[in-house]
């Protein structure tokens, strides 16, 4: 159905004189620049260096890219990454060495008797709590004698 709309009318037009270009299919009209994979357009760029797997058929006279420039761009990025990684590694090694050396010194520092969890008042209150305990409260033995019970 779509082909009927797009195709130019043939019946009411005069016959063209001389060789006429074949009407392109709809795919070719919609995508004129996309090359066909099965039919690469012949051009002079077929003599490109090996390794270029995607020749652009639409630009037959395009000049070949300068070979030295692209390797320069690619190699500059890894060098930057290597430099940053090196700085990070040095920083990490330094941090590990610092912690290794300074850690034991901190551990050997004697902790004070009273720190964040308790206070002097807490210890004093606990010690004074012993004084609140009953002395010899309610010794019931005297109340359980035969005389007290009237036996």
């Amino acid at each position: 159905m779509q082909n009927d709309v797009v195709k130019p009318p043939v019946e009411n037009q005069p016959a063209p004189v001389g060789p006429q270009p074949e009407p392109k299919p709809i795919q070719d009209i919609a995508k004129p620049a996309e090359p066909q994979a099965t039919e690469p357009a012949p051009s002079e760029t077929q003599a490109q260096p090996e390794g270029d797997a995607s020749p652009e058929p639409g630009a037959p006279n395009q000049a070949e890219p300068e070979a030295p420039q692209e390797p320069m761009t690619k190699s500059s990025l890894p060098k930057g990454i290597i430099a940053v990684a090196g700085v990070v590694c040095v920083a990490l090694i330094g941090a590990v060495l610092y912690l290794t050396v300074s850690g034991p010194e901190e551990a050997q520092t004697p902790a004070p008797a009273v720190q964040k969890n308790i206070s002097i008042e807490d210890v004093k209150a606990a010690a004074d709590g012993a004084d609140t305990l009953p002395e010899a409260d309610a010794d019931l033995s005297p109340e359980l004698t035969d005389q007290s019970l009237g036996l």
Partner: protein
Amino acid sequence: MKTGIFTVAVLTLSLSFGGLAGAQAPAATDIKTRTEERKTRLKIKLDAAATQRLSGKCVAAQAKLKVVAAKLRETNDKYLPKYDEFIQKAEKLELSLSEDGVKSSELLGQIGEAKTKYDTVKTAAAKLQTSLDDASSMDCKADPAGFKAAVDDARVEAKLLTDAKQDLTKFARTNIKTTLQAIKVN
């Protein structure tokens, strides 16, 4: 797999309900059993004269025993929590000291010893309470020997309770307090 899970679930439910039923069941040693146990343990044997004397006076004595039992219950409710509170405070302090990196193994050992002494106090208090309640509530005219056994048992338990309380109080005031004061000085 499903059968195994079902079996475990049924077992768990059975144990749960079994435990609840056991907790709700009456104590095996009721007053009669305890009375017979006391008479055997204390070797209570009354002659006719002693039986007659006790049968005539025990009811009046039971009124006095009820007063003593109430006094003991009040004293236990008032003072036993003080021991518990003191031990718990010392435990909390020891935990805080440990978290702060302060070694307090001596305090830890003393707290353990205080707990044992406190258990002795609680046991003696409970036994005394039971003896007093039994002596004051039993049918003493029908069983004067059982009444005498309960009173004698109460006398023994009262002495044990007094000694246990004094022991715990002395231990707390000397050992634990001294250890705490040493921590304070440091």
